[in-house]
């Protein structure tokens, strides 16, 4: 690893890659939100919990690729900023959501001092984002008025979704992206144990 990339500060290349991931997932999140809206009307608020994980996948992917402090948080916030900059009507609210979910995803990485990016930590990051998000939506959508049984079901589903759609799928996508060779020189490529990319 060269001295620049071994530093804990983000390099320009890393910052731009995080921004690119944020912008692409900002666009994909919108498509996912449309699907959620269609399903939410007949199936109710539980669909938010079922589909939740995908909305914080970028934090897992970016953290797994860059492996530096605050990448999970930053990428989620950048995805939200990109939605504001592209003029998406819900941009500002998504910024608050991004801050909450990003902080949740960042916590497990911070607890390992940004040294451990194993599948267990990625799943924990997805679960942590789900817990933070649940507390946020509890206040935002007045979950206190719902029955305890429904709330427990929603919480369990949301944590499972965070682990599966963010933690597990995030790692699958990051590894598939790594195999394309575009991440050469970034931490995922230089850290031992990561699958080697196909090079042209």
């Amino acid at each position, binding site marked *: 690893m060269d001295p620049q990339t071994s530093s804990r500060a983000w390099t*320009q290349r890393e910052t731009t890659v995080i921004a690119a991931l944020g912008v692409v997932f900002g666009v994909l999140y919108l498509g996912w939100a449309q699907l959620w809206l269609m399903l939410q*009307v007949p199936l109710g608020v539980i669909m938010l919990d079922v589909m939740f994980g995908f909305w914080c996948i970028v934090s897992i992917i970016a953290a797994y690729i860059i492996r530096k402090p605050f990448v999970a948080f930053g990428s989620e916030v950048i995805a939200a900023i990109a939605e504001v900059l592209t003029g998406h009507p819900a941009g*500002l609210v998504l910024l608050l959501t991004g801050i909450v979910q990003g902080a949740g995803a960042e916590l497990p990485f911070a607890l390992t001092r940004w040294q451990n990016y194993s599948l267990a930590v990625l799943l924990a990051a997805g679960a942590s984002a789900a817990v933070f998000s649940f507390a946020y939506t509890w206040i935002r959508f007045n979950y206190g008025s719902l029955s305890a049984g429904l709330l427990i079901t929603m919480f369990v589903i949301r944590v499972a979704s965070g682990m599966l759609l963010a933690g597990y799928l995030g790692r699958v996508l990051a590894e598939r992206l790594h195999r394309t060779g575009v991440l050469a020189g970034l931490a995922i490529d230089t850290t031992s144990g990561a699958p080697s990319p196909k090079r042209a």
Partner: protein
Amino acid sequence: MRDSEWRPLHPVNPLTKLAAAIVLVIAVTVVFDIRFQAAVLALIVVVLMVLEGVPPLRLALVMLPFALMGFGFLWTNLLFHEAGGYVESLGRFSLLRGSALDDGIVVFLRAVNFGAVSYAFVRATPPADLARALMQNAGLRPTVAFAVFSVVQFIPQLQDDLRQLHLAHALRAATAQASGIRSLVGLPRRYVDLVIPLLAGAVRRAQRSAISMEARGLTHPMRRSFLVCSKFGRADLVFALASSASLMLMIGLAVV
């Protein structure tokens, strides 16, 4: 930005508008009262239609997804309502406590208001002005701001990439037709196959952009000069006073 026409809210510093919008979002979250939520919605609709010149039909279309979201919360409240809890904890702000329909209507209005406030901010704030204000007045690192701005320019290219990938996948699907269930099982795999090239293309472009930014000395720590300065002025004072007064009035409606 959607148009270059002058609007009354555009001279206000984006950070003043951001602060006002955040305060309003917090108020919408905390004050659990139908009259307050309805007053906020009415205020934002007036601001958007009168000050921002948004046609009613366009406004209705923009608000539709938020209304759909709110509707989901409304009927869930009706079916799975449990009296007490958070609503009760808000004490005197909760004028209509205990009723499933009332709670559901407040949550519905709150979902719509989140969207309305957010849209009003996005509509009244040109993105370049916001980025400039964040850099000059809020300490956002230019390396981050320029990185985000440069990749936002890729979005039209991403749409082209997506169209081409869809065409390529459609051609492949035409040659290898799967049965109904097999087609459904293969859906996640097809999704991953679509996302990876999209991401790879964006990352490749981003890295080229980063190299060109480094080559132009963007990453060098220095005192930067800006062609357009983001300042706070009389418009900000007037806007802040008007926003505070409106908020106090609407909270007063809920308390009285």
